[in-house]
Structure formats: structure tokens, C-alpha cells
């Protein structure tokens, strides 16, 4: 077991290195740096000036070298500015070059400076992650129980009317990406011009002009049902369908297994068959699915946060990418990649624990 975890951790580390390097390389392509130089030193500078700006700011060494610096495995660059003051990666403004550390990268806890927010990257990411954490938590709390319940309910009697109805719902919801359901939700429930709201406010049943709020900006300070329900529902809906289908498939498979027939022929009642014999076996597969949903959940988060203007991790990522904020984008990528890898690890280990066949053989 320990050996397995170590091996997995090693592969994970390797993956993390490979992925961050790719991100680093892609964000540090010459045109991106050129754009950065122009945005930092003025848009109208000449090509030669771009060159000097880049070399003054340590961008002239090889990408691998700079990747090492960024990670904190190689010493940070040093140089002198045109006015003769020493500059360097690890040198804070107006600090004494003698006391500056040699290494300053990810490993030293220095994530760099965001050019858009003018704040340290770690601070930006920390703030946005906590906001997204709430969103994710709410999504999981809604999505997982609902999906499992629906999946088990429709899978336990394959072909019944309940099954058909729930399956239709699941298929429809998996066919609805967040940007579609979000748009539909807003049009239906949070638009003063269309959907339910004009009707309700006309009748005087709601105070404001809309039933739900079309943005979740206010939820950053104070989460309540009216500003948070739509974003949560938007992300959860797609996931509910997907997980419910997986659960259903796994449940129907289990229900046709021989040992279920054995149980029935032992005289076990239907309810007991489902609860005692089928459920545990049927939930093994969905567990991994739920865990592997994380990369995709991130996707949903990005779309929903953009759509509802909720300034969490996804929103930050879009800002970073859209504004060529290299350090911030790198930081976001590290977080995203590590998050995904950790969930994969959990999914692997959890699978083994849920499944006695693997655990004990």
C-alpha cells in the first residue's frame, strides 16, 4: 500500500513538473513576452527597446533556465538597470542586493507578482480560491446526493417508468452545458424582461424586479439563497445528469449480477436486496467518476464565475489569461493541476478501499 502511494506520488510529481513546464513555456513564448514588455514599458516602444526591456528583466535566458528560477531550483537572475541600480528576480524594490536571497521561486513560497491586480500572486489566488471553495462546496453538497439518489432510483428497476423519466432528465441535463443552462436560468428566473420574474413582480409576490439575482457578485460578501442558487444549480445540473447516468449504469449492471439473483432466491425482499446487496457494489464506480469530475468542475467554475461575475478562481484565471498576466496564469495553472492530480490520487485509493476484491487480494 505504502509503495503504491509512493509510486503514485512520484508519477504525480512528474506530471506536475511536465504540466507546469508546458504552461510555463506556452506563457513565455516570445510574442507573449513582447506583449508583456509593451504593456509594462509603454505600447509604442520599438523592437530594440523591447529587447532591452526583456534582457533587463531577466527574460533573455533559456526557457528551461527561467523555469528553474521560477520553481526556485535555480538562482534568480541578477542584472543592472540602465540607471545602474542592481536588479534581480529576488530583489525587492529598493532593497539591499546583499541581503537578497539567491533563490526565490515557487519552492520558496514566492509566486511572483500579478501584473493585473498589482498584488502578489499568492494573495490573489488565496482570495479567489476561498471564494471558489464555497461555490464548490455548495455544488458538491447539492450534486452528489441528488445524483446518487436519482441514479440508484432509476437503476434499481431498469426499464420502469421511473427509470425512463429519470433517464430522460439525466440525458437532457448532460446535454446542457453550463453556458446554456446559465443563459436559460437567467432568462427564465433572473431577467426583469422575460421568464417568471415580470409575472411575479407584477403580481407583487416578490420585492425586487427579479426572483433570483442574475449576478453572484454580492455572494462574495454574503452568500444567500437568492444570489447563490443559480450559479450552484448551473454547475450542479450538468454534473447531476452525468453522475446519475454513471450510477444508473453501475446499478443496472449490479442488479443483473448473479449474486443479486442469489439474494432474491434466498428470499430477500426487494428493498433489502437494493440496500444490503446492491448499493455498496453499485457505488464503487460512481465514486471514481465523482472524483474524476474535478477537472471538469473547474471548467464549469470558470464558465459560471464568468457568467455570474463571481470573482473566484475561474474568474481570476480568465482575467489572467485575457490580460497576459503571466505570473498569475502560471500560479493558477499550478493550483489547477495539483488539484486535479490530488483528486485522481484520492479516487485511486478510495476505489481500492471500497472494493474488497482489490484490497485483500
Amino acid at each position, binding site marked *: 500500500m505504502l509503495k503504491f502511494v509512493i509510486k503514485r506520488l512520484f*508519477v504525480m510529481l*512528474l*506530471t506536475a513538473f*511536465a*504540466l507546469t513546464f508546458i*504552461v510555463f513555456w*506556452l*506563457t513565455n*513564448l*516570445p*510574442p*507573449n513576452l513582447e*506583449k508583456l514588455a509593451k504593456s509594462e514599458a509603454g505600447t509604442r516602444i520599438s523592437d530594440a527597446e523591447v529587447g532591452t526591456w526583456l534582457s533587463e528583466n531577466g527574460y533573455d535566458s533559456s526557457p528551461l533556465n527561467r523555469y528553474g528560477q521560477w520553481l526556485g531550483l535555480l538562482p534568480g537572475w541578477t542584472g543592472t538597470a540602465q540607471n545602474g541600480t542592481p536588479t534581480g528576480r529576488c530583489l525587492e524594490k529598493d532593497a539591499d542586493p546583499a541581503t537578497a536571497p539567491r533563490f526565490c521561486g515557487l519552492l520558496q513560497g514566492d509566486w511572483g507578482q500579478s501584473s493585473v491586480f498589482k498584488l502578489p500572486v499568492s494573495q490573489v489566488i488565496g482570495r479567489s480560491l476561498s471564494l471558489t471553495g464555497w461555490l464548490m462546496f455548495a455544488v458538491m453538497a447539492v450534486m452528489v446526493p441528488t445524483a446518487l439518489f436519482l441514479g440508484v432510483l432509476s437503476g434499481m428497476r431498469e426499464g420502469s417508468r421511473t427509470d425512463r423519466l429519470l433517464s430522460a432528465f439525466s*440525458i*437532457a441535463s*448532460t*446535454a*446542457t*452545458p453550463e*453556458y*446554456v443552462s*446559465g*443563459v*436559460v436560468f*437567467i*432568462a427564465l428566473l*433572473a*431577467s*426583469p*424582461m*422575460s*421568464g417568471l420574474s415580470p409575472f411575479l413582480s407584477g403580481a407583487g409576490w416578490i420585492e425586487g424586479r*427579479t426572483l433570483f439575482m*442574475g449576478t453572484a457578485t454580492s455572494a462574495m460578501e454574503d452568500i444567500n439563497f437568492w444570489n447563490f442558487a443559480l450559479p450552484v444549480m448551473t454547475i450542479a445540473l450538468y454534473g447531476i445528469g452525468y453522475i446519475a447516468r454513471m450510477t444508473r449504469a453501475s446499478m443496472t449492471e449490479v442488479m443483473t449480477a448473479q449474486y443479486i439473483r442469489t439474494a432474491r432466491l434466498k428470499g430477500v425482499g426487494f428493498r433489502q436486496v437494493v440496500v444490503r446487496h446492491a448499493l455498496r457494489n453499485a457505488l464503487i464506480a460512481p465514486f471514481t467518476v465523482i472524483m474524476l469530475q474535478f*477537472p*471538469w468542475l*473547474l*471548467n464549469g467554475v*470558470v*464558465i459560471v464565475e*464568468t*457568467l455570474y461575475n463571481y470573482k473566484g478562481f*475561474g474568474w481570476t*484565471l*480568465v482575467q489572467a*489569461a485575457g490580460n497576459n498576466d503571466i505570473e498569475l*496564469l502560471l500560479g*493558477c*495553472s499550478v493550483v*489547477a*493541476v495539483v488539484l*486535479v*492530480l490530488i483528486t*485522481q490520487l484520492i479516487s485511486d485509493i478510495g476505489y481500492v478501499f471500497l472494493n474488497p476484491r482489490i484490497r485483500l487480494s
Partner: protein
Amino acid sequence: MEPLSWGQILLAALQQFLPVWVALIVTFALSIRYKRKLALYGKLFDSPVGMIGFAIVMFWVFTAFFADWIITMDPLAQFSGSKNAVPGSALTAPDPDAYTHFLLGADHVARDVFSRMVMGAREVLKIAPAATLFAFMVGITLGLPAGYVGGKLDTVISFIANLVLAFPVILLFYLLVTPEIIVIGIPTYMAAILFLFPIFFIGILINSRYFTNPPQRNLYLGIAMAICVWAYIGLAFNADPLGVWGMSPNLLNVFVSVVFVNSPGVFRIVRGMVMDIKTRDYVAAGQTRGEGAWYIMLWEILPNARGPLIVDFCLRIGYTTILLGTLGFFGLGVSPESPDWGSTINYGRKLLAMVPHPALAPALALMSLVLGLNLLADGLREESLKD
């Protein structure tokens, strides 16, 4: 002129889609008539779910095909004074020969929503199935040896596939689908590599089957390779001397990115199925005959994995459609002018709370297509399991 009521809008829209209805009826009549002779495709017509799905999918396919007849106005034209016009409203300055109403209203720059939605179907169906097909070729070409040979090869390819899968898709798109990337030429390099897979696939397919008969093999291989290389030069480098094959740099970039993120998924499925099928006796029989590895993979294993692959293909076209929409949603689409659904939703969402219809129409269109593909896949899966 009077605005149209909802009933009139519906009638008018139904009428515009006339060619699609005719085509659908013909397709269904023929298919049901001959369903017993049509293998899995025929069996589809025994499943109500599959039939509904197929009907929806074919609706959009025919819409894309007949789009020029269906649209009521030029999807790119702007009609001054009709910004955000509500569905059914009349043109302010109607041209006597042309259509007089915005069936589904107009968008924020006064373009006809209905026509853009119809043209959007063409945009989507031009890219999604082709990109999925390429992703399948890549996934299959890598998944077969990984599953069949196993060992180090498998470890390496699986590692790379997992690498791509662990990348949050949006991040990847933000990194790949940017103008800067095109300047560097990365899409072209990626295309150069990714588009090699289909050539390799077809080449091996023919060679392993006909190598016992060199003249025949040379003939088939020659013809196939000539066509492939021609298409390759055109698609990957946009340098087709005859100008038949070609993609704009932007389109190529989107296309390549979509193929790139889809291939690892296909790879995984293929690899899993190969590992299962390779334990069958007919594979062992091939081996004891001294058959080459590629023949066994392509002719003994692959055809027997076709059921799940076809199902996955349908699902994946839907997924690709969603991806393309996502790209459009983040403004990374093919071009700002393009009427593709994702981009249209993106523009529409800015005023969503006030004028929902420009975003709603493409959103529902996209949803229905994906739904159709999902239902189709479900029907196919169910039918392929029976008997």
C-alpha cells in the same frame, strides 16, 4: 408592417425548414423500409429513443446542408434601427424582394437571429464531426499498440495521455487558442504531427491487409497515400497547389486544439478494449499463424471493438460541440463575425438579463443537437447490446 404573433412565427419557421422536413421524411421512410438489411443502423429504428435522437441529429445535419435555402437574411448583414428587435418584429426598411420579418428577433448589432442560428449549425457541423474523426484516428493509432503491446510503450503513451487529461480544458484552450500561438506557428506544427496519424493509420491498414500480394498492395497504397499526402499538405500547411483542401489559420488552431484534447479520451477507451479483446482465441489464432502485430490490431481487434466506438463517437461529437461552444463563449472562437453558436451566446450574454433572445436561440439549438447525439448514442448502445 405588423409584427408577427408567436403562432405566426412558428408557422413561418416551420415553412422555412421545408427542405429539412422533406429530407427527414425520405430518410426515415427509406430506413424503416430496409431496416432489416442495414445491420446496426437498421436496428436503430427499433428503438424509439434512438429514432428520436437520430431525427434531431439529422434535423441539424439537413439544416446545415440546406442552410442557404432556409435562412431568411444574410446572417452577417446589419439592419440599422433594428438593434435587439424582439422576435417577430418587422424590418424597419423592408426590401420588397426579401424577407420582411426577424423571425427570432435581432441581436445587439441588428443581425437576424434566426438566420445566424441556422448558419451556426453549418459552422458547428463543419468542425465537430471532422475534429472528432481525427481525434479517433489519433486515439486509435496510439491506443491499439498501447493496449496490445503493453509494457514500456503503454506506460509512456498512457503517461502522455494522462498529462493531457489532467490539464483543465479551459486553461489549455486559453494557452493554445491565442493569436500569439499562431504567430509562432505552433498550430501548424501540431497539425503536422496530428494529421500524420490518419495517414499512418490508413497506410498500415492497407499494408497489413495486402502485404501478401505486393502488386495489389502497391496499387492501393499508392492511391491512398497520394490522396492523403495531398490533403495533408493542404490541411496542415495550407499549401494545397490545387486549393481544394485548406483551413484558415484561426480555424486550424481551433480544430487542432479540439483534436488534441479529445484524443486522450479515445485513446483510453481503445486501449481498454484492446486489452480485453486481445485475450480472445481468434487473436491467438492470428498470432500462431505468424500474423503481424498491426494486422492483428487493425483487422482482428479493431472491427470487434466497433460497437462501443461508434457509441462513443456520437457522444464525443456532442462533447466536441460543447467544447466549440465553450471556445466561442470565451471569445476564442473561429472568428468574431462567425455565426457559430458559442460565439453568438457569448455576445448575447452581455445583455442577457434585458434581451435574452439572441443568446437563447443558439443556446437551445446547441442543447438540442447535443441531446440528439446523446439519445442516438443511447439508442445505439441499447440496440447493439440486444441479440
